[in-house]
């Protein structure tokens, strides 16, 4: 049986690994998972492990009733590999998340499935040789 890109991505997450794709022809990273490189059309794409470091591109605090868990964050994160993904920045109040913030990915397990979440990167996290 063959595996779709979505199935492969989720299987890796379920095993605790965060993988994205990279194009063998133009070398660009690709997210969301798919069959063809959206930049040059090449296929198949290969799976690689990103650094997990990124920057908050945009953020919103979603209102939710306290008894349902209270407000929560939804953010778009630009990974250092040059791709964007939706996620949440946790470990800080949702309103404390801000555009431009350095964040670090981790794979969480929710309801038995792997999920990429982010938390603020440590101030001493080295990126491209400089402190973030």
């Amino acid at each position, binding site marked *: 049986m063959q595996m779709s890109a979505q199935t492969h991505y989720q299987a890796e997450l379920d095993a605790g690994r965060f993988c994205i794709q990279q194009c063998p022809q133009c070398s660009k990273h690709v997210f969301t998972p798919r069959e063809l490189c959206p930049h040059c059309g090449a296929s198949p794409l290969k799976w690689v492990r990103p650094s997990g470091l990124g920057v908050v591109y945009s953020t919103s605090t*979603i*209102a939710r009733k306290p008894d349902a868990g209270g407000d929560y964050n939804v953010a778009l994160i630009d990974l250092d590999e040059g791709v964007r993904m939706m996620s949440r920045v946790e470990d800080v109040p949702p309103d404390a998340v801000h555009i431009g913030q350095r964040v670090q990915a981790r794979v969480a397990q929710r309801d038995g499935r792997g999920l990429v979440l982010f938390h603020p990167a440590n101030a001493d996290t080295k990126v491209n040789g400089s402190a973030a």
Partner: protein
Amino acid sequence: MSIPQSHLDAAKANRHLRGRIAIAGAATYGCGESPGMDDMTLLVRAAHAAVADAGLSMQDIDGLATCSVNSGMWTMPVIEHLGINPTYVDGTMVGGSSFIAHLLPAVRALDAGQCNAVLICYGSAQRSAAFGRKESTAARRFMDPQPYEHPFEPVLPVTAYALAAARHMHEFGTTREQLAEVAVAARGWAQQNPEAFMRDPLSIDDVLKSRRVASPLGVRDCCLVTDGAGAIVLTRADRARDLKQPPIHVLGSATACWNRQISCMPDLTTTAAAQSGPQAFAMAGLSAKDMDMAQLYDAFTINTILFLEDLGFCKKGEGGAFVQNGAIAPGGRLAVNTNGGGLSCVHPGMYGIFTLIEAVRQLRGQAGQRQLTRARTAVCHGNGGTLSSQATAILGTADTV
């Protein structure tokens, strides 16, 4: 994202179609709350009214364009219910922009003689129906999965627009007050429109203090959830001249789609309207400065600001300043959403067709208390998905052809 010259050249290839087709009939039905109605009933009543408005009968209709959020095969039950036998059928579904996206293919089919009268129609009872917005949203998670967004529980569509608004504020210094100006202006127009659903006074302070939904947007930054239906009838211009109403010509039209999910949008502060707009204007041979009004798909307050920029009414980033001090309210420098828009008039899930109907009413001089003194040209702009698809149309009176 910059638009390749080849795309504008492609749009100019439609130049010979400029003005050849006209909107001969237009109608709404059941806007606001229509208890007891369903999508089909509302659609058919609007369709019947639009055909009558044109002075035609349903048996004259030999072209149909329609779509639905809930049914992938919507053209077929509509054909069955209307009792028509079309030689032209278009069921393209690109969200709320669909009914503007239906224009150009219909123009081509009419010009080619494939059909003689095209009905573009929509109806939704999302506010009143048993299978309403909540059920439809839940079902769509299975029918239209977004596995890279749904696990994070974005409340769609509002979260997507909140992310765009937050980014616009960050990049350009756009303020919540400027966003609120859009809602206040829409309410000002709605107060002059008996058909508008919300007509109570609304201040900038009211908008800022409204219940937060997804920061930076509050509930008054969000469109209404109403019932409603709308329909227009297109014919070749020579025939339209002999019909009941003054013909309103399609001068330009184009559709652009860059993504589905908000996380896959290249740049949240520039929409595909930056492509569909210049293409539609290129076909029309006109630009934003030639427009007497703009009917823009205002699902959220940020939409209006984004589309004013992307359609060329101001530079990128200056939309917030553009709308300040009542500039798009009645008596302002540019008439925008003169019916009250999706924010205050009507928003039954997909709003696009109502931009066309309001433009037609204004261009015919039939807009009542809110009638503009100068109304010869209009840009109508539709948005679909979560800033996913964009469709633009330029309409004009007979003396603009």
